[in-house]
């Protein structure tokens, strides 16, 4: 096999940034191996300046169509931190349910529609429909359940409308929660079918490892996506979310218009595998058993296994939500009125997006108008790690030829479930 490689996978359009893969090798010597991210800089931080604290959520919920609940929650938590706004236990639990619904939406989409088709050797889920109709239908059903669940608690499938500083504008009825719980119990069967189909092709998951730092939030009581401090296996002590900038250490890199991040090493990874590596002991028993089936153990440093960690999280999320609904129904739902006022302050919010840890910070003047904002998305935190993976992966597989190298590099990027090109979805068509 030739040891020359010339891979130039470019996906650049005017406003939709995509990642580019560029590899140049001659006689087995790698001259260039780069993950380039020409993502257009995002100006939403400037866009929220001058807005009242009650209006910020409507803008940040539009940053992303997949993580809109997560962005809204991170922003709302940051606003509440800045303005010393308390949230009731009931609202907190409902928000966690809302957040879980988005995790399930996103994970089923990523696992089912984007990543697992790789293990089947298919370019996307579409060609799999005739071959594996039942499995695809299980994915579609699980995704639909997650969407309707978001709709119930967030008021919409995407871009939530019920979330406000201090609580929620609308809560579901007890009967709606009971119905949702029954649907979630059925979803566990679909998740089992998806897991079985994934397991049947798990041998095709590339065998690649690179030790790196895994960053996520952590909480003493639960496998957390919502509350907690920042941790990694390298951290001497956990870091409060207000100090997230000392973790992310954002810097400008010539390969990217998006900022890169590093903490205790020259790069770090966030996402489902990071959460699993830091918090796996707190998963439900069935999620732990599923991890074992896939041979996924704490300390795994195969980035392709991020997809499997997402699948395991799906089971954990659904089981934990069933329990959380039980708790809410036992206590009984109460209508709550939220009253807040603006004042000066600065605060931060941090939650786990499906694809990794997300930070928001806002500062307000005495009238509660925003005077400063900062946001650090998980995909940016993974860029340096993807680059470091490329640098170890390509020399290891260079003998497999250009097509195989390109395929494994593309699969690697996909396994991180990156958030790129998400702010615009317009059509681009020729008439036939």
């Amino acid at each position, binding site marked *: 096999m030739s040891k020359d490689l010339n891979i130039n*996978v470019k*996906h*650049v*359009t*005017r*406003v*939709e940034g*995509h*990642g580019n893969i560029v590899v140049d090798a001659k006689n087995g010597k790698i001259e260039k191996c780069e993950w380039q991210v020409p993502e257009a800089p*995002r*100006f*939403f931080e*400037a*866009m929220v300046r001058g807005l009242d604290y009650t209006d910020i959520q409507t*803008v940040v919920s*539009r*940053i*992303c*169509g*997949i993580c*809109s609940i997560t962005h809204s929650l991170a922003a709302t938590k940051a606003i509440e931190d800045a303005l010393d706004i308390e949230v009731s236990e009931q609202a907190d639990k409902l928000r966690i349910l809302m957040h879980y619904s988005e995790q399930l*939406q*996103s994970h089923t*989409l*990523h696992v089912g*529609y*984007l990543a697992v088709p790789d293990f089947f050797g298919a370019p*996307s*889920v*579409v060609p799999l*429909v005739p071959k594996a109709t039942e499995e695809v*239908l299980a994915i*579609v059903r699980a*995704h*639909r359940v997650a*969407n*309707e669940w978001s709709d119930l608690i967030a008021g*919409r*499938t*995407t*871009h939530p409308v019920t979330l406000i500083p201090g609580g929620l504008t609308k809560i579901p009825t007890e009967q709606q929660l009971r119905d949702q719980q029954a649907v979630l119990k059925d979803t566990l069967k679909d998740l089992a079918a998806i897991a079985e189909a994934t397991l049947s092709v798990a041998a095709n998951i590339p065998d690649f490892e690179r030790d790196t730092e895994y960053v996520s939030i952590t909480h003493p009581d639960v496998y957390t996506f919502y509350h907690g401090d920042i941790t990694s296996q390298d951290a001497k002590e956990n870091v409060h979310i207000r100090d997230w900038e000392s973790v992310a250490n954002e810097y400008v890199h010539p390969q990217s218009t998006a900022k890169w991040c590093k903490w205790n090493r020259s790069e770090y990874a966030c996402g489902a595998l990071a959460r699993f590596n830091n918090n796996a002991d707190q998963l439900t028993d069935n999620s732990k058993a599923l991890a074992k089936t896939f041979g996924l153990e704490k300390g795994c440093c195969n980035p392709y296994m991020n997809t499997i960690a997402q699948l395991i999280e799906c089971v954990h999320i659904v089981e934990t939500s069933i329990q959380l609904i039980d708790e809410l129904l036992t206590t009984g739902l109460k209508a709550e009125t939220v009253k807040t006022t603006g004042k000066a302050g600065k605060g931060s919010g941090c939650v786990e997006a499906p694809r990794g840890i997300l930070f928001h910070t806002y500062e307000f003047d005495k009238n509660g108008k925003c005077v400063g904002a900062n946001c650090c998305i998980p995909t940016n935190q993974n860029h340096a790690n993807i680059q470091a993976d490329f640098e170890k992966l390509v020399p290891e597989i260079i003998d497999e030829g250009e097509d195989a190298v390109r395929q494994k590099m*593309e699969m690697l*990027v*996909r396994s991180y*479930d*990156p*958030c*790129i*090109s*998400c*702010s*615009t*979805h*317009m*059509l*681009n*068509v*020729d*008439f*036939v």
Partner: protein
Amino acid sequence: MKKDTIVIGLGNLIMTDEGIGCTIVGHFSAHSDDWPGIEFIDGGTGGMNLLHMLAGRKKVVIIDCAKMSEEPGTMKRFAPDQVKSIKQLSHYSLHEVDILKVIQMAEQLGSSPEEVIIYGIEPEKIEFGRGLTETLSARLSGYIKQVTKDIC
């Protein structure tokens, strides 16, 4: 019970003309009492979520910003099979979705509506910012009138 007809506005309200679909559907939602048999949804940039919005419908009207090599502000009405997508997809991310591909998947899964109508509106500017350009906002009532013909 799902309504037979759904009108879906797609796009992003913080990306200037990208938000045209959401803006138009927002108008209809504000007057939804006039249209009891029709559901109006601001689909935002939810991508694959559209698959579930299509399922179980007879008629779907999609309104979206579209690069069609037309003059900015031009609105065109077409069926999915009248166009071919030239959108570049990297397939790296869930965050890029071609609505035409979602419709294709719905067809394969047997959940495609009997009729899908797409209204594409050529943007003048797509960049971070709230509100449409003057070119599009000046023609808003005309767009609404056009879409109304399809749901009367």
